[in-house]
């Protein structure tokens, strides 16, 4: 790797264009607001922001490496020190909670625009860090950056419409979609739109393919695994799940359950409201469960796997150098070990040498008794328990079969965050550990 000064010169051109883009973006926003005449204060604010961005752009393009705007080293060190899988996961959960609870505030266009500007500037300042830039600008990671911004945008669009609709419904008015429900034809309206999109996206991909080189690596070899070895970006959530589970569960059962659960959704849903229009208040449970599964358990894990998992699948801070020699002290133990050895202070039950199959299986069952009991309680006892407490109304409206499917799907989904928490807090590897038959949970 080249030294920092050379790197900054390399990245300065990009950053100049980047800040200029933000400046133009804010300038256009200011112009539009000024023309509308109803928010002159914000118009002036965005004009000022545009000016500041132009200053940043000129600093980046000044040709002097020391003038390129960047985060102070102390801040970067602090971020690296603080970041870890626990803080990342809990932090994103907290962030989503705040965004959800104060959604009426965050969906305001001016607030959302401010958040976008802040995100873009932090991104620009971070790009001046060599380690950050080398990860973010990797050809196969660039789409994830786009994904973050596009997800934020589309979530904002949906949420802001839902907030408007919820306010209208509270006042007894029909939702926005019911007022302006002019039908359009599939042919030609939709098909033409799709055609135009197709042409535009093809052109964009062509340009992308020309400017971003394919991330080709050395020839494959069965005895040499790249370090870090990463799945395609859309599977990085799965790969992160595999850190906490045996392959049969994280690679087969859970993904199948995701697909099955998505297919089952319309049959489990008994809420007739919120059909054909955005609304959060009217379907809070469905909204929260889906967003938790999608954002927390899928998207944040993809981002974690893409940007924060380095060699040996260790966690690296966003500004940390990806060294394969990072040592993380981990010593995972299975639940039987914890129960028999640590708690009861006696050796693990072991079948005597040359014992018959029945004795072996019996010994294994005895050894795994605590884990099996825990798992059984979780999957068998918890659904009825929930039915008479938290989900009383759900159970009454859904009936036995639908309720049981819903409850079990939800509990299976929650195994992932629960297992993550158990791994972080207790260093627990497997609750049920039967390596003799490759059955671990």
């Amino acid at each position: 790797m080249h030294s920092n000064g050379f790197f900054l010169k390399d990245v300065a051109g990009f950053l100049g264009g980047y800040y200029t883009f933000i400046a133009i973006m804010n300038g256009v926003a200011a112009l539009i607001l000024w023309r509308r005449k109803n928010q002159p204060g914000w118009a002036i604010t965005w004009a000022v922001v545009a000016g500041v961005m132009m200053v940043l752009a000129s600093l980046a393009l000044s040709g002097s490496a020391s003038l390129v705007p960047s985060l102070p080293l102390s801040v970067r060190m602090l971020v690296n020190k603080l970041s870890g899988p626990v803080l990342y996961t809990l932090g994103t959960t907290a962030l989503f909670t705040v965004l959800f609870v104060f959604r009426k505030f965050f969906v305001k266009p001016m607030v959302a625009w401010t958040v976008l500007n802040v995100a873009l500037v932090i991104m620009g300042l971070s790009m001046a860090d060599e380690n950050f830039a080398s990860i973010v600008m990797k050809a196969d990671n660039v789409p994830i950056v786009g994904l973050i911004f596009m997800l934020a945008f589309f979530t904002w669009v949906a949420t802001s419409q839902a907030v408007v609709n919820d306010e209208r419904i509270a006042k007894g008015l029909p939702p926005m979609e019911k007022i302006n429900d002019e039908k359009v034809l599939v042919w030609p309206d939709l098909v033409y739109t799709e055609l135009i999109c197709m042409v535009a996206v093809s052109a964009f991909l062509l340009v992308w393919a020309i400017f971003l080189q394919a991330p080709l690596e050395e020839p494959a070899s069965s005895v040499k695994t790249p370090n870090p070895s990463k799945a395609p970006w859309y599977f990085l959530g799965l790969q992160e799940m595999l850190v906490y589970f045996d392959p049969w569960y994280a690679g087969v059962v859970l993904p199948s359950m995701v697909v099955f659960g998505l297919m089952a959704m319309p049959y489990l849903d008994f809420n007739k409201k919120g059909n054909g229009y955005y609304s959060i208040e009217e379907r809070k449970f469905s909204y929260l469960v889906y967003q938790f599964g999608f954002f927390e358990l899928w998207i944040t894990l993809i981002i974690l796997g893409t940007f924060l998992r380095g060699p040996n699948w260790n966690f690296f801070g966003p500004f940390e150098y990806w060294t394969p020699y990072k040592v993380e002290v981990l010593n995972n133990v299975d639940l039987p070990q914890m129960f028999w050895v640590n708690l009861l202070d006696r050796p693990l039950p072991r079948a005597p040498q040359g014992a018959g199959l029945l004795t072996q299986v019996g010994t294994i069952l005895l050894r795994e008794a605590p884990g099996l009991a825990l798992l059984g309680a979780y999957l068998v006892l918890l659904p009825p328990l929930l039915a008479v407490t938290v989900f009383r109304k759900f159970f009454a409206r859904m009936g036995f079969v639908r309720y049981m499917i819903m409850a079990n799907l939800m509990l299976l989904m929650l195994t992932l965050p629960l297992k993550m928490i158990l791994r972080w807090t207790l260093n627990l590897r497997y609750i049920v550990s039967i390596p003799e038959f490759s059955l671990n949970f």
Partner: protein
Amino acid sequence: MADKKKMTVAEILAAARAKSGGGAAQPSGPATESAAEPDAAPAAEAQAAPKAKPAPKPAAAKAAGGARPSVADILAAARAKKSADGDEEGGAVAVKPKPAAAAEKAKPAAKPAAAPAAAKAAAASAPKTGVQRDTASILAAARGGAKPGPVSKAEAPEVAAKLQAVAAKPKAVAVPAEKAVVVRTAPAMPARPAKAAAKKDGEEDRRGFLEIAMGSFMAMGFTALSVTGGLFTLGLARYMFPNVLAEPPSRFKVGFKEGFPAGKVETKFVPQYGVWVVNGEFAGQQQIYALKTVCTHLGCTPNWLEAEQKFKCPCHGSGFYKDGVNFEGPAPRPLERYAIRISDDGQLEIDKSKAFQEELGQWADSDSYVTV
């Protein structure tokens, strides 16, 4: 937008027909406009129609969807209408139809009625053109599943009879008697060729010869096929036992015991054989053993980290001690051992055809290690 486009096609056709003289019997409309045009043209005409009588729905649907030749009529009607209204709009081509959607919105009932109404309008303005068919005959043709083409003179009485029946039915669109009903004439179809005569038994002709010949050819073909298939299977079986095996042998020698000092993990056999040869301590005994370089979690190849004294998998972060026992990450069981022994010449010989798993208690097997 679409309606404009569609109408333009109709317009062009009408114009073309007007140019060509517009009297003689015409072939039915091109196949491409079979479904699209009948819808659009009548919809546009619906406004022009004196009075859109609500017609029974099935009849309308059949007229619009089933009866293809109505296109010609509708186009003719459009042309007639255009030539009548031409002065106010400035030529047939420049006529701008109002979008059908507007008409639909204003009068939702107008759509089902549109097609017959338009056809009726066409019938009303037909005398000018001289060649015209009325809606009822089209409908009758469509309903009766009859030949959808133009009605020939020979068929005319039949059509007329059908027409009567249709007019009698309450569902059908009755055509007022004062309106002229002109059956379009078309050239009669050529006579149908006579069917081939059935072959008599014992009669020898060219077909019979072919049949006999084909029989023997079939037999030959199947014989050849089975012989080829058999040879191919034999060849495939031979292919399974190649003369030269490119893969390294499962038994190989790695050198003398002295080449593996205590505490050393030898990684030089990894690229070729996928084996670490380790001189380490296990169960209180100094042993030399061969560890398989496959992570027990998902099968990646871990790396030996000399500084940390552990095997670390790059895929999900599983870690193994020097003796192969898993201690961190998701790997559920220790790395596997290969069989190792001291061969007759005193060298260590590893046999990859046999693996030993710790969780099954196989590491106690004396084949899985060599004591130092």
